[in-house]
């Protein structure tokens, strides 16, 4: 079991709800993944603050917890306003905070992120900040009141997987007691297994599942990879060595030559 803001969650896989071929496929993928939390992007789905209720009632009927996000927000003000709207619409203090700094790479604006995080934490939100793997920014976010961090491992939707293992390792090492969720950049189940082996607490996926040829099969595959990586982390991984080590000792074997 894994706990976020006092809520026990059965699965360490969080799933985004955008870009699926249809809500029916999304529903099946959520079921196949075993996830307990899905993210919801308020901004685009509710044009003019209206409509979209049908889609969210479909998502609500899946019986999983909703983590609203501020996807597509480019300023502190926009992100804070969206977070407040999301709290009203979804009735939860949880908010995945995104403040985008670059339209092209969807890189977080870490300065705006820290500022928005402080405002929202003071307002009683449980903030999940989408951040980079930068340790100093992470510390500032914790200082602003965040209890969870969501570092990227590569740009959103890039499917590159962990591009800077060293940074991820040092992040885990620096914040042993902070729940760390890899938020963006995972492309394949092996990427998810890798970051889980590094000791990250959970992963959040969207494109890799939604845009797969068979999103339901891919959701299942990721779910297994997350479980495998977590169990491997808990079981003590063997460190790599420079020399071959036989699994059966050679000393004591019969010598015939």
């Amino acid at each position, binding site marked *: 079991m894994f706990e976020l803001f006092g809520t026990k969650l059965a699965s360490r896989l969080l799933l985004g709800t955008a870009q699926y071929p249809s809500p*029916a496929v999304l*529903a099946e993928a959520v079921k196949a993944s075993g996830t307990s939390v899905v993210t919801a992007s308020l901004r685009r789905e509710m044009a003019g603050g209206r409509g979209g209720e049908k*889609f969210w009632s479909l998502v609500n009927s899946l019986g999983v917890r909703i983590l609203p996000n501020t996807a597509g927000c480019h300023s502190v003000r926009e992100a804070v306003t969206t977070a407040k709207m999301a709290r009203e619409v979804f009735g939860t203090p949880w908010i995945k905070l995104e403040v985008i700094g670059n339209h092209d790479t969807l890189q977080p604006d870490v300065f705006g992120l820290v500022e928005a995080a402080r405002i929202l934490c003071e307002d009683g939100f449980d903030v999940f900040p989408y951040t980079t793997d930068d340790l100093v920014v992470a510390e500032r976010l914790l200082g602003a009141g965040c209890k969870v961090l969501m570092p990227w491992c590569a740009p959103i939707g890039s499917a590159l997987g962990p591009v800077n293992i060293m940074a991820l390792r040092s992040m885990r090492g620096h914040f042993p007691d902070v729940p760390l969720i890899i938020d963006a950049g995972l492309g394949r189940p092996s990427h998810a297994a890798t970051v889980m082996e590094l000791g990250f607490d959970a992963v959040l996926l969207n494109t890799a599942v939604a845009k797969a040829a068979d999103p339901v099969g891919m959701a299942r595959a990721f779910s297994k990879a997350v479980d495998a990586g977590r169990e491997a982390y808990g079981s003590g991984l063997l460190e790599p060595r420079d020399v071959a080590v036989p699994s059966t000792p050679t000393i004591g074997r019969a010598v015939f030559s």
Partner: protein
Amino acid sequence: MRRVLVKGAGVAGLTVAHELAARGASVTVAEIRGRIGGKASWLAGGMLAPWCERESAEEAVVTLGKTSAEWWERTLPGLVTKAGTLVVAHARDASELARFAARTGNCESVDEEALAALEPDLADRFREGVFFAGEAHLDPRRVLEALAGKLRAMGVIFLFEAGEIAPSGFDQVIDCTGMARADDDLRGMRGEMLILHTREVSLARPVRLLHPRHPIYVVPRADHHFMVGATMIESDHDGPITARSLMELLNAAYALHPAFGEAEIVETGVGVRPAYPDNLPRVKRRKDGAITINGLYRHGFLLSPAMAEQAADLLFNSSADLESENEADRQRRSA
């Protein structure tokens, strides 16, 4: 002779009216507006592109849609352009092309030279593309007007600005009113589009520009007009186009060809596509005996011929198997 009342004069209503009239029914079409074309149908792209659509749709869209171009050509000769679909991406999004080709089918990769031969105005702008030779397109407004004209000639009666009509005068009611129809399973998918006019660009066929976040299509219309579409927003709000959407559509059109930057914006439009949870259309029989055709989503012109045939089969041959296609698809998915 069977007397049938078709409610709604959008693409679903007019195609089923044609199918029924052709099979000998006496058809009346009632439309709440003062003109044919409905709401979403009037704003549609008019692409008959089942293989391209397969990228994000179920296989049923191909099985139900692949004969659509023939249906339109047979029904309204000369109004369908069979020139295929060209899919392009900028060099840095080249992996999107491979992904698109892998998800679809019935297509071929084209190099710089072949691409230039297909669309000379895009030469030097794109180095590779994917060509779907078997696809077609039409101009929704011209086609719906021509279809209405043909229906009148076949004896179909049109009632405009129609209020509630007593079903007692008819043997069968077929409801094709899209989002106006109260159906718990239906949801709205907002779409925003615009029409540009520029003499500086010529295209022979619909062009889709792949982009990880803002994929668009541009469909050529008569006299150097271009329909640019369309956003996909989970919402049934039909208020005016947002600045963000307009900006994204224009950006993408500009990225396809810089001359679109100088084009006139002739029109912007917002419609709401009716969709069922699997984004596939349904022919259903309601408790009161009426047949409904709905949930055509972004496939109105592509799938309404198949839905019209299913509805007509249901009416003329009561043993017709409803939703068999959808059912097969569901089984495939859950297998």
